[in-house]
């Protein structure tokens, strides 16, 4: 039997949804429930795309995906292997976000450009136990990141950086 365990956690600015399931599981979402704009695969593999369209993305473990363009669509995910996916969800589809994995060992979001001065930045721990400014993060821990402050990162895990524009 193909199964999937799903859960959801939120804070005022965003939420995450987690799907952990078995090979061959099929998950469909309509635009009314779809708020995922970035996706990180902890492990496993599966095809993701718009329903009835031939184009698709293959989600793979250890990779980060920008799925903003699908947020208003009927989508489907078909697991090719047992999988563990984390989705970053906006609370408001009209709100613009940027997202990426953090690779630098010193994170600095300071900007002197006026129009992006008021962006808000958040990091989320997706995997492992990365250490930021001496604090060890666990999976799903998040923190707001402020300009004019440097964040030293020991990459003993995976961290996503999300900017609310």
């Amino acid at each position, binding site marked *: 039997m193909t199964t999937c365990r799903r*859960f959801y*956690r939120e*804070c005022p600015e965003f*939420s995450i949804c987690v799907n952990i399931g078995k090979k061959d599981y099929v998950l469909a979402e309509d635009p009314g429930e779809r708020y995922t704009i970035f996706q990180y695969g902890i492990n496993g593999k599966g095809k993701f795309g718009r329903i009835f369209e031939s184009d698709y993305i293959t989600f793979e473990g250890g990779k980060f995906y920008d799925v903003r363009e699908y947020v208003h669509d009927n989508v489907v995910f078909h697991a090719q292997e047992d999988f563990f996916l984390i989705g970053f969800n906006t609370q408001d589809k009209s709100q613009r976000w940027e997202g990426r994995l953090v690779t630098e060992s010193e994170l600095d979001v300071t900007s002197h450009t006026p129009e992006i001065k008021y962006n808000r930045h958040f990091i989320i721990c997706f995997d492992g136990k990365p250490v930021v400014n001496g604090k060890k993060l*666990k999976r799903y*821990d*998040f*923190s707001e990141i402020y300009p004019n402050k440097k964040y030293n990162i020991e990459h003993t895990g995976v961290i996503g950086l999300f900017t609310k524009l």
Partner: protein
Amino acid sequence: MLPNILFKVISNNPTHQQMTVKFCRENAPESIENYETYNISYSNLDFSSSNALIESIRSVGSSIAQQQFLDEPILEENKSSNDIDSIDIEDYVGKIVSVSFNATKELNEVEL
């Protein structure tokens, strides 16, 4: 499924249109006699039928019984160990771990 609520009318005062009642849940660890007594005004009760009367007493008692449940002390022998940060089951053997009854819906924010 939660246990039934017990109530016992301790006194009735028609002159002042009120009564005193004790509440507890059916599987309470103590006798209902050991629980606090509450005054209930007739104005909070429904006398249209016996069922309606009991239901209106229940509506007063349910939050009281729930609070009693939440206020029960934790037995010394049920106090949990420190957080265990491990995925090795061996590290959990013989230790008491405390987790919230419902799955949390809030993300954990860390100050950096």
